């Protein structure tokens, strides 16, 4: 019986332990294509058994980094160390990593079985062992019945599984996944996300996944590296990235956010007072002490904003009056766009915990939006 994810994952945080050695170490890697710098002086560490996500918009350099790990591209400068071995100059066919391609890259002229066996044959594994391993992989991805089919005789989801089985067949130290679920429809994608997590746990492998889908990264990864313009902007756990983004870019990139720009008026005793450009006085908990008069922004997630008809007790601090401008009913929750007096639109979401409310909020109603002192993050501008 497999252990549940929680029992293992709860205490899994090798990056927080200074004594643990990284499994993959990317050191000051730069990759240029002509004049274009795809990856810019990038450093990061990935630990054994970690599920690590490289997240960013297209063209941010995440795929280039993955391809350098696989050996399809060579860094212009810097080095990549894998399990103590410098990978410089080692061709893809001699690296202990395997990759699952975005297009799956199945060999069209081979059966499912031969696709999975291909890597094992290259290693000169005895035939009986290959057959055994292939059967094992087919069972793992639940494709036993399809071993004799060619790729074009399979559905998208089945092809994805073949690609996964093929990349896992050699038991690589690291599995690289390039947008592995991009071609699947939403429902199948969500199911597969959890399957991948379970599989990674079961096999005890290190996974490095490239994705532009933040939900996918949040769901699966132990840690996420948010990338932009060839650089890592923040590396942290999904919760940290979401709740404590280190920059406007990350706050804006991950999930929905309300950003209040303003000026620091005072900072003392673990809290900062900020006057927003719209004239709302804010008081936010913050470990840092920015100087008075400094520009700052406060990022607050929609679900941490309350909507009420009456002003909250702490008004006017952390509160503002406005009218309901737009309502988006999503079933599990409702998103309100509240237009403040200065014209700023604040997004607030409320969970629909009961089926029917006696007097629901409607369009054009005057309401108060408010939030607690620890609801948001102070970002230096």
């Amino acid at each position: 019986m497999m252990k549940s994810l929680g029992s293992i994952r709860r205490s899994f945080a090798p990056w927080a332990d200074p004594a643990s050695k990284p499994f993959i170490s990317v050191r000051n890697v730069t990759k240029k294509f002509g004049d274009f710098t795809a990856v810019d002086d990038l450093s990061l560490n990935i630990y054994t058994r970690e599920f690590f996500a490289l997240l960013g918009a297209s063209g941010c350099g995440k795929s280039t980094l993955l391809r350098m790990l696989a050996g399809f591209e060579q860094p212009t400068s810097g080095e990549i160390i894998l399990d103590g071995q410098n990978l410089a100059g080692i061709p893809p066919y001699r690296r202990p990593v395997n990759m699952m391609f975005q297009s799956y890259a199945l060999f069209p002229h081979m059966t499912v079985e031969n696709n999975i066996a291909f890597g094992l044959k290259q290693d000169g594994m005895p035939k009986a062992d290959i057959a055994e391993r292939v059967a094992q992989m087919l069972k793992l991805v639940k494709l036993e019945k399809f071993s004799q089919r060619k790729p074009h005789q399979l559905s998208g989801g089945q092809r994805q599984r073949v690609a996964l089985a093929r990349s896992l067949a050699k038991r690589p130290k690291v599995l690289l996944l390039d947008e592995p679920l991009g071609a699947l429809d939403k429902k199948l994608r969500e199911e597969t996300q959890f399957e991948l997590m379970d599989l990674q746990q079961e096999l005890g492998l290190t996974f490095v996944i490239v994705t532009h889908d933040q939900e996918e990264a949040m769901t699966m990864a132990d840690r996420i590296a948010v990338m932009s313009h060839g650089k890592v902007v923040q590396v942290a756990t999904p919760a940290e990235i979401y709740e404590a983004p280190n920059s406007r870019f990350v706050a804006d990139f991950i999930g929905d956010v309300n950003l209040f720009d303003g000026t620091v008026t005072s900072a003392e005793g673990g809290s900062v007072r900020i006057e927003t450009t719209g004239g709302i006085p804010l008081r936010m908990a913050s470990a840092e002490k920015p100087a008075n008069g400094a520009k700052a922004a406060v990022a607050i997630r929609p679900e941490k904003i309350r909507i009420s008809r009456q002003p909250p007790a702490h008004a006017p601090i952390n509160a503002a009056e406005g009218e309901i401008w737009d309502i988006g009913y999503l079933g599990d929750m409702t998103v309100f766009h509240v237009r403040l007096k200065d014209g700023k639109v604040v997004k607030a979401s409320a969970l629909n915990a009961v089926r029917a409310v006696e007097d629901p909020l409607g369009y054009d109603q005057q309401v108060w939006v408010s939030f607690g002192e620890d609801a948001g993050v102070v970002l230096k501008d």
Partner: protein
Amino acid sequence: MEKWSRFNIASVVLGFGFLYLPIVLLVIFSFNESKLVTVWAGFSTKWYSQLWHNQGLLDAAWVTIRVGLLSATCATVLGTLAALALVRYSRFRGRVLFSGMVYAPLVMPEVITGLSLLLLFVAIGFDRGFWTITLAHITFTMCFVAVVVQSRLLSFDQSIEEAALDLGATPVRTFFAITLPVIAPAVFSGWVLAFTLSLDDLVISSFTTGPGATTLPMKIYSQVRLGVTPEINAICTILIGIVALGVVVASIVTKRREVQRERDERAAIAAIG
């Protein structure tokens, strides 16, 4: 069904008549009893049986086939390599020049190709004959193979080669285990094209030939200058038959594969639903 207007019928008849009337006449007269080519004197296959006794024609046919097989095979290897280089290594210096040079023989007048090859063979003192014809045919058919293979490679998903490398196959093994099998149909049609071109080439062969190496088109041409005989009609009919058979077989194979593929895909989709 759409209705055929008179104009449509007329244009089809005219077009096909223009294309096929000469060939049809040739085929009909190859079965003519009379020795006079243009006078019909009843059906006969005697000219076909006479072919087997015409040693000159048989020798020429044998030379043609050997030249065709050898030059088509060499041209396919060279043309495929050229196509690979042009598609894959898009960043090497002089790529534009190289690709232009590979295609030049496509538009070069045959007379010029033939003449320049002749000059070359004379200059290096190469004895003209079977080998010079073969070399010349490799030269001018290679670019056709390159064009066919290149168009296939442009739609080739290179990630499958990367996948093979990633799974531990060396570049050489990747080529033979993955790339070549996938582009094989294009390589094969390149070969067929090269073989056909070699089979019916007259101009370049005439320039580069020497004593003892006469190809079938050259033989036919030289005999026709002395007057068309029904024998020539017969051998041409056989040639037409061979080419037509090749085309039909190739298209049936392609169509079959397509139909099979469609059926498989439908089955796969049905299996999910």
